[in-house]
């Protein structure tokens, strides 16, 4: 219903094709294309720092989308997403080191991570809920340990050097150029997921989440789709990780801990489980929250609050605490995430002043 009420009056669809579009109206389509075009010009007027934040949102957003497909759309759980992100990074660095061109290495790393994800996703065919959560927790620790020990692959504790991104001999490293690479991947990956969700296999994933018994009666193979969700999720994580590795130029096991996995969960909870655009919103929120904390702390420096709380020394703790607080607050007051809030804001403007 919500979708129907959001349509402008006089908007009649006369073909099924017109009714199956991604964007409800032509205006939203133009708006989205406009936003991407505008982003294409971002390197010309944005600072390098702002660009680096956008790039961060890009690769994290891709990985988070994978997790949302797994958790939000297919109703499973993974608390080991960070290691798949890491695996993608290491795999891409490794492949590039062996002479594979970086753009190809990123895609291959995604596929390689998919295979690993499928292996760790096998328990999903049999167990659900808490038990599955523990199984994915095992993936987190096994792979984290693997990264430290497999020196041939990851360089062990020293980490691995990831070659800079070059396309046909043209160097695309550096914030202002790498930005386009990330933007390209974001658009492709998000479009892919949107399309997937409006076709057969995407619907099957949601059906398995909503009512697995009747999904099975409709001919959906539960084990196949549950495992497949892990595969897709790992593919996205792998691509995101690979983009990260070639951006930073260096991949290290540090930071791929369970806290990072939980941050991914935070992104999709805040953004909205089962919402593709929500994933991006959640990622933006998670990336900008620490920044905003920094700005506020900076603005408060020298004030009474600063003197009492020692903001400058405690800023990193404060950031972590705020992320935790944000997740809790969203779970309590907006469990459907920013995507839901955004829909409500749109409905408000649409219906104003007759909000009933």
């Amino acid at each position, binding site marked *: *219903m*919500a*979708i*129907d009420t959001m349509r402008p009056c006089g908007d009649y669809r006369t073909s*099924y*094709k017109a*009714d*199956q579009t991604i964007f409800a109206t032509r205006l939203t389509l133009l708006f989205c294309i406009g936003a991407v075009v505008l982003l294409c010009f971002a390197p010309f007027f944005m600072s390098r720092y702002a660009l680096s934040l956008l790039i961060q949102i890009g690769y994290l957003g891709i990985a988070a989308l994978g997790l949302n497909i797994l958790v939000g759309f297919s109703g499973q759980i993974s608390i080991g997403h960070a290691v798949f992100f890491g695996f993608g990074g290491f795999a891409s660095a490794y492949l590039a080191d062996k002479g594979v061109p970086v753009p190809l290495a990123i895609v291959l790393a995604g596929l390689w991570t998919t295979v690993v994800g499928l292996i760790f996703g096998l328990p999903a065919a049999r167990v659900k809920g808490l038990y599955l959560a523990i199984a994915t927790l095992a993936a987190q620790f096994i792979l984290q340990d693997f990264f430290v020990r497999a020196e041939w692959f990851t360089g062990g504790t020293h980490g691995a050097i990831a070659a800079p991104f070059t396309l046909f001999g043209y160097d695309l490293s550096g914030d202002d150029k790498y930005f386009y690479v990330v933007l390209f991947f974001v658009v492709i990956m998000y479009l*892919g*997921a949107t*399309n*997937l969700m*409006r*076709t*057969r*296999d*995407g*619907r*099957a994933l*949601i*059906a398995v*989440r*909503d*009512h697995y*018994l*009747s*999904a*099975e*009666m*409709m*001919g*959906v*193979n*539960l084990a196949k789709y549950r495992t*497949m969700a892990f595969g*897709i999720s790992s593919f996205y994580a792998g691509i995101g990780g690979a983009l990260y590795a070639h951006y930073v130029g260096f991949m290290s096991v540090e930071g791929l801990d369970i806290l990072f996995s939980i941050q991914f969960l935070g992104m999709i909870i805040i953004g909205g489980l*089962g919402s593709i655009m929500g994933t991006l919103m959640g990622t933006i929120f998670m990336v900008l929250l620490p920044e905003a904390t920094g700005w506020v702390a900076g603005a408060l420096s020298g004030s009474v609050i600063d003197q009492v709380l020692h903001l400058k020394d405690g800023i990193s703790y404060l950031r972590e605490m705020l992320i935790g607080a944000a997740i809790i607050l969203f779970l309590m007051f907006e469990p459907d995430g920013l995507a839901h809030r955004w829909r409500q804001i749109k409905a408000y403007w649409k219906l104003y002043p007759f909000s009933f």
Partner: protein
Amino acid sequence: MGLSTTSVVPQAAADVRALLSVENISLRFGGLKALTDVSFHVKPGELFSIIGPNGAGKTSMLNCISGRYTPSEGIVRFEGENITKVKPNRRAAIGIGRTFQNLALFSHMSVLDNIMVGRHHLLKNNLFNGALYWIGGAQKEELEHRRKVEEVIDFLDIQHVRKATAGTLSYGLRKRVELARAVALEPKLILLDEPMAGMNLEEKEDMARYIVDLNEEWGMTIIMIEHDMGVVMDISHRVMVLDFGKKLVEGEPAAVLADPHVRKAYLGEEDPLLEDEQALTALSA
């Protein structure tokens, strides 16, 4: 349908014409006997009802046919083939659809998507050309099937809620959407588990109409569990009565209703004639 099957095994030879044959099904959960040695046959185009008191094993029977449970003993044949051990998700493809007693819609999906899931086994697009959508034919296929789904939507008069989220609908509408989803499977045999439970008279009349139309116009064979005797007697071709997991009788509605055992077991009516009979048999023993 199934008339030319020459490879039918001897014991089922008498029921070559049967679309579904249930042969000596027993189902046990530990010490509990849910079904004991039940056999029946459903012919193509039939509207077959299963009735019986609560806990008689009606839904268990349906679950054995739809593959949710594997019977402890006995064989289920569909079009002459033994499907006793076929996985539930394979049964959609061979032509069995069902609805559930308690609503089993995908409550966060739109009505349209719910019904589209019903076409899962008919669609061929996959992960890869699905994600590409415009390239690889997924769009074309989706639109073709959308047309088919619209026919089902038209038939069940749910056009007005096409885009609504299934979980927000009223009970009667949800039941109808569930039927639509099962019909979208294009099954040969459709299993309805209490399609009219919890409905008011008007909704029941509508639902009965849809079921009869499905049977007569769409040519679907129907097995229905229902407690509303009026509906069962009016629309079924044949009725089977279960009690405590055993088959009491099977036959034309009127004959079944007149059967003294049924009156006693199902309708809870003490029949003086029956008691006399029992007394006589007790004396003669």
